[in-house]
């Protein structure tokens, strides 16, 4: 077009600036949400998980208080885990463990759950293949195939698995559990697949010391990957060579 554009210098740009400002503010406020949404949204519906992602947790025991059991209560509430009235047979997906080194007297407390090993012994010993590792690193029990032999409970170095002795009622619809099968921490797979974080991590962050961090160990830009690269952390019973996905600091 041959329109002479020099005559436009005196155009009032106030409205344009205003609109630009609004757009900028909207963009900034939405962008952070969109970014979180896009990388928290781990996968699309109808798509299989891949090993591009490896879910893991980092637990800072310095921030973990003795006597605080918020993670345990959150897990029990989220997954509908009740009590049988017999403490010894109550299922425990996560438990607080208090450690004391008899040589130095140092005491610490930490939450212990399924460590989601990369080479899980429970998967090796399951006769039907019900205990399996998903592509994204979460170790689960396929209750459809579980025959309740408890070999995985024997094989787990962390005593992470529990056996359900009695018929259950009113299970949470996102956490099926039944009599005669073995169960353990699922890393809240129902939440993760929707882009969320496990209930214990959320409870610790919201109501307690913020000792637990969850994220993708394979993503170098994730908070957890940056932290394990920067600060020393260890896996419990690393000598067994299982490469658990849960790492601890401060022990």
């Amino acid at each position, binding site marked *: 077009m041959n329109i002479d554009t020099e005559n436009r210098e005196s155009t009032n740009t106030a409205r344009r600036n205003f609109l630009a400002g609004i757009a900028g503010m909207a963009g900034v406020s939405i962008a952070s949400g969109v970014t979180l949404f896009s990388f928290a949204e781990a996968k699309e*519906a109808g798509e299989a998980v891949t090993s591009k992602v490896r879910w893991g947790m980092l637990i800072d025991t310095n921030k973990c208080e003795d006597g605080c059991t918020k993670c345990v209560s959150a897990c029990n509430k989220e997954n509908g885990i009740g009590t049988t009235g017999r403490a010894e047979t109550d299922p425990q997906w996560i438990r607080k463990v208090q450690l004391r080194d008899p040589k130095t007297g140092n005491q610490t407390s930490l939450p212990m759950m399924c460590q989601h090993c990369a080479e899980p012994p429970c998967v090796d010993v399951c006769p039907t293949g019900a205990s399996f590792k998903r592509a994204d690193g979460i170790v*689960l029990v396929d209750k459809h195939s579980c025959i309740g032999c408890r070999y995985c409970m024997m094989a787990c170095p962390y005593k992470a698995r529990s056996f359900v002795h009695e018929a259950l009622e009113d299970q949470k*619809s996102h956490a099926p559990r039944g009599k005669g099968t073995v169960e353990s921490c699922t890393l809240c797979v129902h939440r993760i697949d929707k882009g969320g974080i496990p209930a214990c991590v959320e409870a610790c962050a919201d109501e307690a010391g913020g000792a637990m961090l969850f994220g993708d160990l394979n993503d170098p830009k994730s908070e957890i990957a940056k932290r394990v690269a920067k600060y020393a952390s260890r896996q419990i019973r690393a000598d067994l060579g299982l490469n658990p996905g849960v790492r601890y600091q401060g022990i």
Partner: protein
Amino acid sequence: MIKMRLGVFSILGLLFLSLAVMTSSAQADGVPTPQIPKALQKTEKGHAELMRRNHMDLMLHKRDKTVHEGIRGKQYSLKACVSCHAVPGPDKQPVSIKSPKHFCRACHDYAAVSVDCFQCHSSKPPSSAGLVNLLEGFLKR
């Protein structure tokens, strides 16, 4: 001896025949069929027929896909089936599998095939908060 055997078999045969006649004549309109409660939503054509024949195979296949590969969505969700096929009880709340009015029990009681899915899975739709979550999840995708 043979005469005795013949006699025994003929009596047995008569008994069976009379039993068959008695049971069939009890239903004036033929073999009784299960009373299947209506679903809460309308779905695409052919869904009922497809499910009638294939629901077990579909469920077995899809559950492996969901559990082992993490594939989720409306087509793979038992929660979705249970929510759509919820039957309200006398207190207007959905009944659980314990009640004979449950959707799955309509056919399974009739065919005397035990359904053990609900030993682990919840047979009622998720609570209202959970249900909202569920529907939102489906809508988003």
